[in-house]
């Protein structure tokens, strides 16, 4: 694996391996010396054509914990606003000999283009492209779910998958790269995924997606799923009237305090996930966001560990050379 572009190209083994590595990376964050020398002397470029705080900071922290040098590039205030093309921008960065490029772009497929075109020689990591994919977010969600399961069963998380877990992804599936990446990764790991959304926010051609689709959140929650992942309502991508009003959306598909209470009454094991940033009071109520069931902050912490694992696995060594003897 040279690049990380989508989660549907990740095999079961690769996914479990990334998560196992991430578990050990997470242990580093609890030490007093939070640094590893693994990527000393390598350069990671954060190429962000779209606004982001948590993903960029997370990648930056991850690269720095592995001792890599980090160059941050955001399209605002750069030559991109003067009309420089993706190719020229990328090649300029390559001339500074970057070893890995972390790219976020508003256009689906921009990371793929960067990886396949031969413009650059570095490893490409997709940090979110348009409505297409956001693989590291899906990996950190899988890591969070795995830790939830490990905490519930008391079994160490190493080597564990998500076999038999039921994950419900709720909200703006149409515009969500997080939902797409999660559907593929979580099913690869054995989980059962149900998407719940207003009919207007469900993509058209999703027959080949390995998941179920529902429109009634209460009916799905009555099954007491292991996790509910609320998606952010992406108002910046909404150019049409997808639902009559925000209040109506909240009533139908928001994680309201009534729904939280109903899960409490059922004694369901459900945890609440959200990729952030949250629209409190819209898709998730404050009661849900601040409840002990919420894993939002764990997700952020696991994000650093997962990104450390991805950077480490992509940048250390290539498969052409065999591994030497153990001694």
């Amino acid at each position, binding site marked *: 694996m040279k690049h990380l572009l989508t989660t549907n190209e990740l095999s079961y083994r690769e996914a479990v391996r990334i998560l196992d590595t991430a578990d*050990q990376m997470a242990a580093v964050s609890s030490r007093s010396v939070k640094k590893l020398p693994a990527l000393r002397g390598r350069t990671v470029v954060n190429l962000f054509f779209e606004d982001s705080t948590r993903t960029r900071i997370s990648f930056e922290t991850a690269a720095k914990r592995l001792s890599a040098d980090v160059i941050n590039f955001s399209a605002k205030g750069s030559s991109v606003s003067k009309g420089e093309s993706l190719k020229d921008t990328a090649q300029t960065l390559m001339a500074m000999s970057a070893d890995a490029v972390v790219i976020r772009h508003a256009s689906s497929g921009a990371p793929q283009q960067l990886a396949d075109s031969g413009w650059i020689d570095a490893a490409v990591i997709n940090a979110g492209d348009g409505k297409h994919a956001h693989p590291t977010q899906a990996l950190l969600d899988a890591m969070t779910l795995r830790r939830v399961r490990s905490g519930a069963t008391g079994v160490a998380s190493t080597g564990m998958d998500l076999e038999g877990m039921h994950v419900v992804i709720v909200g703006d599936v149409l515009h969500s790269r997080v939902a797409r990446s999660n559907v593929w990764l979580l099913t690869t790991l054995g989980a059962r995924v149900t998407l719940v959304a207003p009919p207007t926010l469900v993509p058209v051609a999703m027959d080949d997606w390995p998941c179920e689709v529902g429109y009634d959140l209460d009916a799905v929650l009555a099954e007491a799923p292991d996790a509910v992942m609320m998606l952010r309502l992406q108002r910046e991508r909404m150019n049409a009237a997808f639902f009559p009003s925000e209040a109506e959306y909240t009533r139908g598909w928001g994680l309201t305090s009534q729904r939280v209470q109903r899960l409490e009454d059922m004694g369901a094991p459900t945890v609440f996930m959200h990729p952030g940033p949250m629209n409190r009071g819209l898709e998730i109520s404050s009661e849900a966001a601040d409840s002990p069931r919420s894993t939002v902050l764990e997700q952020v912490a696991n994000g650093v560990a997962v990104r450390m694992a991805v950077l480490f696995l992509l940048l250390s060594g290539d498969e052409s050379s065999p*591994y030497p003897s153990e001694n």
Partner: protein
Amino acid sequence: MSVPEHAEQSPRSMTSRVILSTPDIDRALSRIAHEILESNKGSRGLVLLGIARRGYPLAQRLAAKLEQIDPDFHAQQSTGQLDITMYRDDLRRHPARTPQPTVIPDSGIDGRTLVLVDDVLFSGRTIRAALDALVDVGRPNAVRLAVLVDRGHRELPIRADHVGKNLPTSSHEKVRVLLRESDPQPRARGHEDCVIIDSPVVSDDDVARAPGTAGKGPRA
């Protein structure tokens, strides 16, 4: 992104010899345990850290023996595992191995006498990486090295304080240590734990002498 599995079958055109069988390994570990106590003048402040993967079961066995000899020593509270994957100097050239957990005893390693335990001492690069990894964990008073097999061919100025067996080898040979904890495949009786040398069939004169066999090798 696949890692070649550590070959458990000897490759073709190789002959395999068992150098140490289960009782041999047990005797070697007993001797090392006594040596550790002797050089430390007791078990005060001792911590055993096994290098992942096969050093850890060896460290556990050594700790159990130390506990038998000296009841003041608490095996459980003084044994841990150290993963050195992130500290290797060949990360650029070889596919990364999945890191193993690093487990440090609750009492920490600051001010203790720390014994690193590994299965085979070869180039010394693993031990260099382990010394680097230790710096990020704490500051022991002294670090000692115990290995089951020293096969020579050092590339760095590193030597072991306690050696189970000095094994002169050719650089073309491969030394494998199989332990029941880390390699649970069924093996013949008496070979549940064993040390094996795989040699290419073509003979080779490049036989190195491991330090210690020349008679003036440093021993603790």
